[in-house]
């Protein structure tokens, strides 16, 4: 295969566009109109960039970092979705109860509560993995369903709005909501927080002893233990809990920044999409910023296709999936020709 260079990204985008066009044409939709809508819905205006694409990227970025961190250490945490719900419920509850306090007090308390709740939701799989050797893919996946249904029950029960009519909670008090990052748009400060955390995680991986040990354990826990006298069990537990905490944070940031109340089914499967976000970024925290924005753009643009070109949601979902697969194929072809395929590389 030819060594791809500067045209690699254009090849990937072109491939995705071509496949998407075929899918649209098969569905009988106006292809130029739909593609135009896809573009304008994602990047066509200040609102599209900030209020649609970047705002949508926040939960993907935070859960993407959670997955990247865990996968780096060889922990297959499929439970970011459930951890996000745990964090959302905990963050909302603290924000709702402490709403009378100033934002400088209540917001950090909410975020802290969501970190703890996310970690707590990952604690059981952590113990099961390290003590009992139970596969964390199964435990984290099953706990997702528990979290989703438990949240739905709470919203229909103890946390329901005081009138008892609607399937939602009361709204968060003003002081418990996140401020705007980009004036005139809906982009909240959670985006800046998520980007900062990505940079911090990258620094940890690249420059610290802990980061080095995480990578070492991920690539061979036995070897790391023998060669470096690393307590790989303790390290794995710490990473697993930290991953859960990050996913939990995504929940609180989303509720305080976007939904402003709890609704059942609050996530669009971000905790699962996060796996694709992290893998496409090859588990590099800085690259997760880019891939999360890419996924956010695809979703924002797809939604715009509904409004402008009349493409129904079912087709939009198909097109989103096709686009992602197209990019993954292009990425794979490129990395193969570039000779850097294989295990996740060090940052």
């Amino acid at each position, binding site marked *: 295969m030819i060594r791809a260079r500067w045209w*690699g*990204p*254009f090849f*990937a*985008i072109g491939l995705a566009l071509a496949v998407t066009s075929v899918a649209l044409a098969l569905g009988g939709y106006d292809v130029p109109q739909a593609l135009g809508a896809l573009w*304008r819905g*994602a*990047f*066509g*205006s200040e*609102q*599209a*960039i900030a*209020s*649609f694409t970047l705002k*949508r990227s926040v939960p993907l970025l935070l859960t993407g970092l959670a997955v990247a961190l865990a996968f780096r250490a060889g922990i297959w945490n499929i439970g970011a979705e459930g951890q996000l719900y745990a964090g959302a419920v905990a963050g909302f509850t603290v924000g709702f109860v402490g709403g009378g306090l100033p934002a400088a007090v209540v917001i950090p308390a909410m975020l802290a509560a969501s970190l703890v709740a996310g970690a707590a939701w990952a604690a059981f799989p952590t113990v099961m993995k390290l003590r009992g050797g139970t596969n964390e893919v199964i435990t984290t996946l099953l706990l997702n369903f528990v979290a989703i249904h438990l949240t739905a029950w709470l919203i*229909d*029960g103890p946390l*329901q709005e*005081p*009138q*008892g*009519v*609607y*399937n*939602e909670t009361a*709204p968060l008090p003003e002081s418990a909501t996140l401020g705007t990052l980009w004036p005139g748009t*809906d982009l909240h400060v959670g985006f800046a927080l998520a980007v900062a955390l990505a940079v911090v995680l990258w620094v940890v991986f690249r420059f610290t002893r802990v980061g080095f040990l995480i990578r070492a354990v991920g690539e061979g826990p036995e070897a790391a233990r023998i060669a470096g006298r690393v307590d790989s069990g303790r390290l794995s537990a710490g990473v697993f809990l930290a991953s859960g905490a990050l996913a939990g944070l995504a929940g609180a940031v*989303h509720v305080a920044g*976007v*939904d*402003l*109340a709890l609704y059942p089914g*609050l*996530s*669009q499967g971000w905790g699962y999409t996060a796996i694709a976000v992290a893998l496409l*970024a*090859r588990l*590099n925290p*800085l*690259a997760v910023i*880019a*891939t999360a*924005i*890419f996924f956010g753009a695809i979703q*924002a643009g797809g*939604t*715009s296709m*509904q*409004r402008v070109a*009349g493409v*129904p*949601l079912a087709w939009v979902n198909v097109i989103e999936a096709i686009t992602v697969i197209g*990019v993954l194929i*292009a*990425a794979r072809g*490129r990395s193969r020709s570039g000779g*850097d395929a294989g295990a996740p*590389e060090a*940052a």
Partner: protein
Amino acid sequence: MRSFPVRLVAPGFLLALGLSACGESESACRDLSEAPFCVALLTAGPVSDAGWYAGAYEGLLQIEQRWGAQISHQQTRTASEYDEAFLAYGTEGYDLVFAHGSEYQDAAIRAGERFPETTFIVSGGGRIADNVVPLIFTLENGSYLAGMAAGGMTESGVVGMVGGVRIPPAEGVFLAFEAGVKAVRPDAEVLETWIGTWDDVAAAKEAVTSHISRGADVVVHNTDGASFGVFNAVREAADAGDPTWAIGMNRDQNDIAPEVTLGSAVIRIEDAFVEITEAWRDSEIGGAAYYAGGESEVVDFVANPAVMDRIPADLLARIDSMRTAIRSGDFDPPRVPFIEGEEGYEETGAGAGGG
């Protein structure tokens, strides 16, 4: 950093930013078409459901046909898309936005402040602003008539009601139904069961079977997908030689089990959409809830044509004259208040609360 995806995504992103800077600005929907006004619809489910959402989409199409309006529809996935959808339609200058479900109400209030030129209509909503209007379907009016039919047809004098989730709007529908039963048969006993979900077919069937075993020979429901369990149970009882009637709710369900269905209390959502659009064009709405079905044919009781010969003519005549009385405003079936500012509404906890 040798990571490929950064090199893959970053140039695309920068390219996007660059192109968007010189791209055309957001254009108002009316500039793109000759339409007299622009109407958008938000639904939380697919418009192919042959029910709640399909009725709304049909209403949107009728608005397009009748006035030549520019129309658009978006199905939202989760609450995180509510603000985005309102922002998109508001920015594009849509005049009228239908949000078809109470789940949109908080975001609609925010959107109403942001886009004062746009009118937001929230189906089943409870919150009000100058340009945010709850569209309330007074199903009680149809339910009361259905209750009269049940009261006239029951031989045992026992009538069953199987509901989904016990929320004030649903309680109101049964309150009216029970009043209708007793208007015709004052000594009737009315059984009531709430299965706690809208879609559990097995639970609905079990509840109906239990009502039948307690002597009920007419059973009404107020559920969504679970209604199939109601019709199944009634059909099985009838097949076993125990004459029993079912009554449909929300839409015309007379053809699900035509041989055992007395009729249906219906909401004609598409008619309500056209009606409220007309009121909006005449600047008659805003600052209050809009009740569809009070004086029009949006809400009705439709007797099942397949069994018309088994319903006594004087009962049908009685129902007809009550229908006229309700539409002329001479009679108001009872309801459970749940809308901001509604008579009898209390700030904390109208009705029996959820769960």
